[in-house]
């Protein structure tokens, strides 16, 4: 088996290099590395694949945030206005931005994937800002969505 590895090169090492170089060109190297390495598909894929993995990470975090918003609507009704704004924004991330980015990456027009991730970041930041005079209960989650989107966007830019 070692012979087989030897014959085909050592794919894991080469692909680790791709992950590292790609992540170095993002605004958050650590987040990029840890997110990609957590996904078994990140070995042995191309930049497009790495971009997709990151987009799906945005999606997962956005779903988590969306669920948190729902819970908060029940437990903290005084934050209703901001939470309604955030609902709309996370709806846009999950129903528009993420599907747009996935489709654009798979079908081969990556600028729309960049647009989707740029907007996802904007929506997360905007949700956070909508808690004007109170402390946002969603800061950690909003920041995570923002950071993941920014990393995804940076990865996708390599394809343009």
């Amino acid at each position, binding site marked *: 088996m070692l012979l087989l590895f030897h014959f085909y090169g050592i794919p894991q090492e080469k692909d680790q290099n791709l992950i590292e170089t790609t992540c170095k060109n993002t605004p958050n190297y650590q987040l990029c590395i840890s997110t990609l390495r957590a996904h078994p598909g990140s070995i042995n894929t191309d930049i497009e694949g790495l971009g997709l993995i990151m987009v799906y990470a945005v999606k997962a975090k956005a779903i988590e945030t969306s669920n948190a918003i729902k819970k908060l609507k029940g437990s903290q009704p005084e934050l209703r206005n901001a939470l309604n704004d955030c609902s709309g924004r996370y709806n846009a991330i999950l129903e528009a931005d993420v599907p747009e980015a*996935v*489709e654009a990456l798979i079908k081969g027009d990556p600028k729309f994937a960049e647009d989707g991730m740029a907007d996802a970041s904007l929506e997360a930041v905007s949700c956070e800002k909508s808690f004007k005079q109170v402390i946002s209960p969603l800061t950690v989650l909003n920041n995570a969505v923002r950071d993941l989107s920014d990393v995804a966007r940076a990865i996708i830019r390599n394809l343009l």
Partner: protein
Amino acid sequence: MKSPSPYIPLLDSGRDPSRGPSKRRRPSRVVILLLAGLLAAALLVAVALNYKGSGESAVNRPEKTVPAVARGVTEGVSAKSFAPLLGALKSNWTNKILAWQRSAYHFQPKKNWMNDPNGPVFYKGWYHFFYQYNPYGAVWGNIVWGHAVSMDLIHWRHLPIAMVPDQWYDINGVWTGSATILADGQLVMLYTGSTNESVQVQNLAYPADPSDPLLTNWIKYSGNPVLVPPPGIHYKDFRDPTTAWLTPEGKWRFTIGSKVNKIGISLVYDTEDFKSYQLLDGVLHGVPGTGMWECVDFYPVSKIQENGLDTSDNGPGVKHVLKTSLDDDRNDYYALGIYDSSTAKWTPDNPIIDVGIGLRYDYGIFYASKTFYDQNKKRRVLWGWIKETDSEDTDVRKGWSSVQAIPRTIRLDKETGSNLVLWPVEEFDKLRLKKKVFDNVEAKAGSVVPLDVGSATQLDIVVEFEVDQKALESINGTNTTYSCNANGGAAERGALGPFGLLVLTDNDQVEQTPVYFYISKDIQGNFSTFFCADHSRSSKAPDVDKAIYGSTVPVIKGEKLSMRVLVDHSVVESFGQGGRTCITSRIYPTTAVGDDARLFLFNNATDAGITASLQIWQMSSAYVQ
């Protein structure tokens, strides 16, 4: 003769569009699967399964605050969205404000997303316009060819969708293409398809019934694709074929953008029947560092005449424009040069401002533009896609996204010889209603003058400025440089500027959008004039674009400074010096809307007074059927 290619056309698998997208081709999977037999198979099979597309379940779909509609089935992309008529008040954006944003006289479909103009053409008495369209949502996806017709480029009638992704060779996208009218009047359409393996190929389509002036139905050639990516070209870097032109040998020739590493290039093909092609050696042109060339356009302009030229025209009185949309920065660039039809090569007049690194059609929001030769009125007409610059959340709520620019005529600037001049087509002027004239309005240094025009959201404004001559002469030049987007916008005062208009501005000028000139003078006493649009204070909303756009504008000695500004709700098109420099803006005010939007003249210069003469028309809507 078809050039050899590694892409064997797949048999039509009778593909069921409700299945997910096919898996992406990765040759190393063979290696993985071999190893899987030796190692833990389960983990590696799981790896292989991850890229079957969006088959994974949508976990806990978020509760929607808008009426839910069935999702588009193919790739799980965006659901249809409606602007909510009910629902909670969101922070900045009331339904009233969102409704106000919709344009009155720009082309847009009734709802949903639009992007690139496709196949514009004049045929049997009608102007045809096709466009990239998403029938299911206010975001890019599920792309089909929308279609509309007009007799005057201003009033449009929507027609049924012209082409949908229903063949293996365009199932992942019926993308941008161009029309060519053959010598016998026959119309052919070349367009890019994204295949079931996401390979970009070129396809031929033609009207099902050429005698139908509305060109309602289209047939795709049974032998598609007619072109696949040639050797050395990545299968995702091969799209947007141009209108073809005749070679001296009587063949048809077209060009298509691509890239090699970061060198943007344009490939050239010859054909006699649009079915089989010969790839020419080399490229029409290429520019290092520019990246992928999308929506390439290539056409002649006359050095002598005022009218436009047929795409096949050539000769000593002709220059050729090579234009591209840069994927990298979403701007449209052009350059003037000379085309050698015997070598199929184009050379820029000035390599310093070569394609992609020099002049732009428009310094604002304007992309994927495409011209056509209008043989009806003998002019070259330009279409350009104007996207939204607000958040997707707002687009989903209002249920639409993007407009097209008012079609512009293009001609060579005879005075400078080194740039184009773009101007709204003359038919646009028919929308003018009541006119108000303001003659010789003085604006001293540091002043704002209200212009009482009544409603200020649908306007055509033409202004001429005179700058205090003594100030121009006596001001000391400096060696500081200015640029629209790097300096402080309209609030940064210079000796001789900025001055211009404040559009979509509320009474207290809290929300304001300045469109202005800025004159700078260097130590030798030479003037440079800048034409800018400043969105930094255009809205109190934090989630809209606030950039400052613009560029230098050539001014011939003795010319007055002039601008024309078209205001159409959230779309503003500004033209400096007769269209030498253009800026398209998207503006989303929260208070300067409806009856609260006003128009002002302003002069923020420190040392020069200005005098402005204005003609301002109220504009009617362009009725759309």
